[in-house]
């Protein structure tokens, strides 16, 4: 048991899990009923689960999906894609423009999703090609789409903020009638399972990490490094498409200026909070997903404390600074020394 504890306390998940735990405790002290889940009937007449915990997980869906893609890009390319928000605006606009003017049925929605997936993958490949083939730093390469993306979305939308409405879309962005859990949560869980299966049944994880840790060695072992990097951007493209569609379905319209605004920074942050190095290499997707939940839990907590929405970011920044400092190597080393001291003592007493 001691060994297990030691292994766990050395793991990169300690800090994020501890931060999440602190957030929960803090909320419980503040308001015992904070995490209570109620069963209510919503406006559409569905019996659904409601409560802060549901809204945290629900609200974190897009972020968690993007954080997964961002982790892979970070690992393989030692850099980050800052264009995901802008790319999501494009993906969402494509989705809406396919849907508009037709009778919205399930096959049409699937077709629209496919179209927006393809577009997002094309833009992801554009970023990926710049990084993998032309060896441009990821942040610089994706800066192009970061600046241009929302303008492209504006052009697709013809300058308007078109709305789409259909019970089917509400079912995707809200609840499937008769099922009490928000659909975005289900989509997110399905995506996490899918990625888990991909990691289990392919060498995506191993090759990505090898490329991120030692590209020269990766090449000499026969790994196609450019393709591996491109692949990470393609996967992130799929993540962008899914989160763009979820967000459009949630609000029933596409506003290229505001859809998933600043989400790239939150996604990068989720990767970092999850204990992953932004310098690439080894990664842990669980950490990034937990990171996404921490960010969302923080936001919901602050709103619950009636912090004005403009001030939320400042408070978030304070908490995030704390987490990042705690997980810095210097504090970590100190903590590990402290742990060894604490773990040593009881065994000594037993020897005596």
């Amino acid at each position, binding site marked *: 048991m001691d060994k297990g504890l030691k292994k766990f306390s050395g793991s990169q998940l300690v800090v994020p899990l501890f931060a999440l735990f602190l957030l929960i405790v803090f909320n419980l002290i503040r308001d015992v009923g904070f995490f209570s889940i109620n069963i209510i009937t919503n406006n559409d007449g569905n019996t659904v689960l409601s409560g802060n915990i549901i809204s945290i997980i629900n609200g974190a869906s897009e972020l968690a999906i993007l954080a997964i893609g961002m982790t892979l890009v970070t690992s393989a390319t030692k850099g980050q894609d800052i264009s995901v928000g802008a790319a999501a605006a494009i993906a969402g606009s494509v989705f809406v423009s396919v849907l508009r003017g037709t009778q919205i049925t399930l096959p049409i929605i699937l077709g629209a999703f496919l179209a927006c997936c393809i577009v997002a993958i094309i833009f992801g490949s554009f970023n990926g090609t710049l990084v993998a083939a032309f060896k441009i730093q990821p942040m610089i390469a994706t800066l192009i789409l970061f600046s241009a993306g929302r303008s492209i979305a504006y052009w697709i939308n013809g300058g308007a903020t078109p709305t789409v409405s259909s019970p089917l879309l509400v079912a995707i962005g809200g609840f499937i009638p008769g099922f009490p859990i928000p659909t975005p949560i289900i989509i997110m869980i399905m995506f996490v399972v899918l990625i888990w299966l991909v990691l*289990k*049944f*392919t*060498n*995506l994880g*191993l*090759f990505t*990490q*090898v490329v991120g*840790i*030692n590209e*020269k*060695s*990766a*090449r*000499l*072992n*026969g*790994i*196609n490094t450019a393709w591996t990097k491109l692949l990470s951007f393609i996967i992130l493209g799929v993540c962008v498409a899914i989160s763009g569609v979820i967000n459009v379905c949630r609000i029933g319209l596409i506003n290229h200026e505001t859809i998933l605004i600043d989400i790239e920074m939150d996604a990068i942050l989720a990767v970092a909070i999850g204990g992953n190095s932004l310098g690439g*290499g*080894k990664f842990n997707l669980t950490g990034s997903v937990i990171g996404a939940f921490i960010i969302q839990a923080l936001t919901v907590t602050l709103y619950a404390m009636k912090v004005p929405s403009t001030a939320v970011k400042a408070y978030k920044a304070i908490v995030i600074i704390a987490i990042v400092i705690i997980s810095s190597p210097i504090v970590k080393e100190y903590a590990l020394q402290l742990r060894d001291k604490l773990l040593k003592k009881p065994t000594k007493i037993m020897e005596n």
Partner: protein
Amino acid sequence: MQNDIVLSMRNICKTFPGVRALQNVEFTLRKGEVHALMGENGAGKSTLVKVLTGVFPKDSGQIHIAGINKDVTVKSPQDAQNLGISTVYQEITLCPNLTVAENMFIGRGNYKFVNWRSMEKRTTEILTKLDIPARAAQQLSACSLAVQQMVAIARAVDMDCKVLILDEPTSSLDEHEVEKLFSLMRELKSRGVGIIFITHFLEQVYEICDRITVLRNGEFVGEYETKDLPRVQLISKMMGKELDDISALQNRKAVKAKSDNTPVYEAIGLSSAENTKAFDFKINKGEVNGFTGLLGSGRSESVRAIFGADKITSGRVMVNGKNVKIKNPKDAMMHGIGYLPEDRKRDGIVEDLSVRENIILALQVMKGFFKPFSKAEAEAFADKYIKLLGIKTASSDTPIKQLSGGNQQKAILARWLLTNPKYLILDEPTRGIDIGTKVDIQKLVLKLAEDGVSVTFISSEIEEMLRTCSRLIVMRDRKIVGELKGEDMTQAKIMHTIAGEAAQNG
């Protein structure tokens, strides 16, 4: 006599989680001597140096330095420098993009203003005094490796050091450069600096060192006068057993490659973007051949071209008599070629991943993206080779960066053995590793050849190649200048082949 001692370490102990790195180690350094610190990889040489330079705190023991009346505790490398202990590491730790003068003075003193002129003047003085062929205003990267090494030493000496530690300074230098470094060391010696010299090259120890301290498995074996300790005894002290292995090796080489067979690998007019002249090369089944030549003669570039590691610009390649295309490492691997790169750290290991992942990597790539090994399969492969090659690691889960150099090399070797190659290229597999592992690797090469694997073996130590190879290809200025077989394979003949061509060119 007692006054001559500049540094003494007594009963030094240091434990890392699970490992006793140092146990009651003694070390005494006298004024104006070059003292070799010898031992296999993992014997505790580096740990001892790191304790002395304050990188690791010691668990127990005393360090005494001349001129200080009590035991000293070295808290940090900075502290060590203030106490007059300077270290020059294997990898040069200076800034290549600064000038020689800047490198000499960077990080010294608390000045806010820099007097460039006096700095350059002072540097020029030191350089002339120590007879170092560099100019103060020259950018460091424009100097040869040996000169950079010397600048690092000059910097250390100028900081008033009493103890100079040279950790494998010669491993990337050629013979001529080593000679220059040695004359600098002799100069320092005559000024009374005590030098601790760590190296894997036995000849160098016998050329320059006065005394030898041997460590084994973190324990102190003994301190000897160099002249009283023959090489064979030194090796057996380092390994802890009598060494018949090396002479045994000689006899096994007798296995001659069967000629007239179709070569396992044949290249005609092969060249790569790395400036190799187009060359022809073939190797038969079960043959061990070598590429030799000075550093930079193109031997590594040639084998890299065979493996497709650099962009191939021309040439025809046949494997088992059939025309094939090898454009990248994966193609080569698929045709049964393995390549252990020269620079283990840069091109070989994936440092953050486990020993297991490092071992299975090449085979995994060959098997394909969609067919990962299960954890059990991977573990079985890794455990098999950890046992077979005697890789010292806590478990197959340990990150490879925590292993010593020799064990990392064995893991990379395991990576290629696992792919079951028909033709294995080993570029400097024995560089920077201890004598025991070196012998292991040479034995392994011969064993592989007996089993029908063709091997290309490259080493900077000519004796090693003479011992293992049945054919030597001599290179100079990025082209093949000769091929030696059988009787002709002597050190003198190799030198002659390299130099003879030089004379003609000149």
